[in-house]
């Protein structure tokens, strides 16, 4: 009893506050349109470094759209137009001078559905390195091992690195995609519903992984699973119909939401 109290008091005392954080990404008055349809409305937020920030909200509210803004993946869609600014460590992402490939090396992404390349496990992980022209076998070997260990996959695949990656299970494939993303050592890692296609055990493995990874990376994660958001994230942003409704540290948002809308959503009254 006393211990529990002590614990809650402790956690209250070092409660996370955005003002104390180093900021990795700063979004200012960000609007995005699919053709004439506006999908994001004047988003302004600051994303802290070496923390996990979760994005929650009902389907179609623009979570993926926003996440894809952080590595300019939306550039691939012809109809998209944007306004506002997003700064990565103070540098404007959407300026004309920005080298998009270089930006994507700094901001890695893992997609909802695992998408390994039809190559060997080894080649999948070192794909990004090879793109950078790294040929040194030793560097490649070391990085592949580091990334696979980082993604908690090494023990399972170390004896079959030359097998086709498509032969892995869904959860293994997803962890492989994470290994592939972290192998190029990005600053920020974007995860768009990384566990939605996985079984509970793989999900747990990936959640533990996220906890480890935040020591090295700034992590932004989209999820539909409230428990997951509560478990893994330090900060949570609730979005609704393209608006950022509420954004604060995860504890406060889940225990003490300021807006009724947020409360309704996290208590499952809609969404």
């Amino acid at each position: 009893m006393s211990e529990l109290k002590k614990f809650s008091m402790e956690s209250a005392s070092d409660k996370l506050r955005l003002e104390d954080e180093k900021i990795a990404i700063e979004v200012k008055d960000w609007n995005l349109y699919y053709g004439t349809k506006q999908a994001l409305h004047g988003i302004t937020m600051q994303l802290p470094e070496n923390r996990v920030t979760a994005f929650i909200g009902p389907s179609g509210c623009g979570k993926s759209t926003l996440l894809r803004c952080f590595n300019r993946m939306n550039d691939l869609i012809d109809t998209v137009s944007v306004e506002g600014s997003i700064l990565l460590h103070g540098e404007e992402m959407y300026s004309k001078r920005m080298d998009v490939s270089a930006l994507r090396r700094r901001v890695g992404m893992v997609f909802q559905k695992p998408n390994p390349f039809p190559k060997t496990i080894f080649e999948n992980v070192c794909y990004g390195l090879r793109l950078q022209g790294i040929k040194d076998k030793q560097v490649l070997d070391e990085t592949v091992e580091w990334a696979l260990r980082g993604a908690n996959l090494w023990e399972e695949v170390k004896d079959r690195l030359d097998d086709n990656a498509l032969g892995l299970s869904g959860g293994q494939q997803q962890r492989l995609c994470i290994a592939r993303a972290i192998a190029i050592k990005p600053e920020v890692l974007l995860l768009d519903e990384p566990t939605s296609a996985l079984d509970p055990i793989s999900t747990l493995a990936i959640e533990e992984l996220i906890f480890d990874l935040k020591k090295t990376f700034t992590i932004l994660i989209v999820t539909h699973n409230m428990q997951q958001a509560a478990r893994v994230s330090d900060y949570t942003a609730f979005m609704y119909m393209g608006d950022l409704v509420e954004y604060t540290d995860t504890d406060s948002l889940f225990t003490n939401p300021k807006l009724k809308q947020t409360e309704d959503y996290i208590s499952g009254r809609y969404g």
Partner: protein
Amino acid sequence: MRNWFNKGEHWIWFSASAVSVSVVLVFGLLAMIAYKGLLHFWAHDVYVYPVSTANGQVEEVVGELHDTKFKLMADENNPKVMHEVPEYLIKTGNRDVYGIDFKWINSKNIDLSQIKLADDITVIERYEWGNVYGHLASLTLDGKLIASGADVKDKLQNLVEKSNVLLDKIHHIEKSVMGSINYQIEELRLEEKKLRANKEYHGEAKAEVEEKRAELSEAFIKQQASMQELYKQADVLGEVVLTIAGDQKIAVKIRQIVRFWQPNNMSMLEKLGFFFSSIGHFLTEDPREANTEGGVFPAIVGTVTMVLLMTVLVTPMGVLAAVYMSEYAKNGPVLRMVRISINNLAGVPSIVFGIFGLGFFVYILGGSIDDLFYGYAAPSPVFGTPGLLWASLTMALLTLPVVIVSTQEGLSRIPRSLREGGLALGATKFETITRIVLPMATPAIMTGLILAIARAAGEVAPLMLVGVVKLAPELPIDFNAPFIHLENKFMHLGFHIYDVGFQSPNVEASQPLVYATSLLLVMIILSLNLGAIMIRNRLRERYKALDN
């Protein structure tokens, strides 16, 4: 019954019967061609047909039965009644004596019961004048008798083997050794022309050319002499004399003999051996007698080279076009127009491509190449005349739409998530396409190539305009650098069929050859396709897990 209709069972039956009709047609066609073609290689029995002539005498016709046709003839007693009377086409050979190889005889003029196998008949295949059918009589040399009676057959066997060894040697010298010397002399001649055109043909250069030429001529003369020597050796092998119908005699020089056999004395096993050796001859020998006899080796080489070169040319063109259209070009009216044009290109008659190839590739492109690089060879054109390169290019153009369309289909099947995966790792669009998208589209590209090969190998009409000839003196690939001669004219099985079947002086004689060549063409297309399909399946295996 109504229930049966409602379930749509009748549609299943309809489509099943449509499928079986197609299958039966395809296999029937193949079986017919195979039967007629392979019959050509069989050692047919030779019969004696006693034919009664108009003046009441009986004349013996000796030969193989080739064909039977039914002719409508009026009944002798009642002209209103028509009978179908069989007529037999007999291959009698001995063209030098009879003038023609074939004879039609009406069954009314023979007593069918009197037809019998010709005893001990010998068939000799000659390098010229076709087959001889007769009875071995004697062997002579310069009018002197060497052997007669029962000895003749064994001695003849011996001599024919010797002569074939000699002829092989002569052939080797003629084709390979002297061919190569000739090629070098021709190169030298062009070199000299070039030097003359640049006004550099004097001093050292001139001396060098002349020295080389002297060397080559000397080598040529030496080879010629050794060839003469071999010819002499072949000549002193003597000749064989045969008796043919009506006690006439035919003398055949040993060196004229390809081979001989006694079909009526052969066992089944011997006939099978003969069958396979005939196929061997057919596949490996040059054609003789205006293509109506001998083999089709140059046509096989020509067809395969042309198809492979076409594949090499069409792949990059088609793949690049498809990649541009589906990955880079902005969707809009222009792209739609291009798509429609490409689809329509597939429907343009092939002869139109031939005309385009002749007009654009041969005359304009080839002409300009000649002007630019081969000015010294004028007035004889090098590339400004139909040839292998232009034929392959024309075929590449003809098959381009198939390759483009199937490549595009393959590209569109690659999931978006994989492209995004590549891009998210910092790959540029180009890197994503070359490293991920294109390798995964290779099975689809192979499908395009399979269709292209099938179409190109069977096409004849456009080739007649841009490089295929009835008889090409040289193969398009040989042992003289640069090994593949893009400017050479070449032979093609499809055109060979047309030429043998419809342009030769002896259409009857060559009919089996037409079937045999058709069978071969089908087999070659099949095996090229099988090769491509095997490669495709291996690629598919590699990417198979993608389909889920």
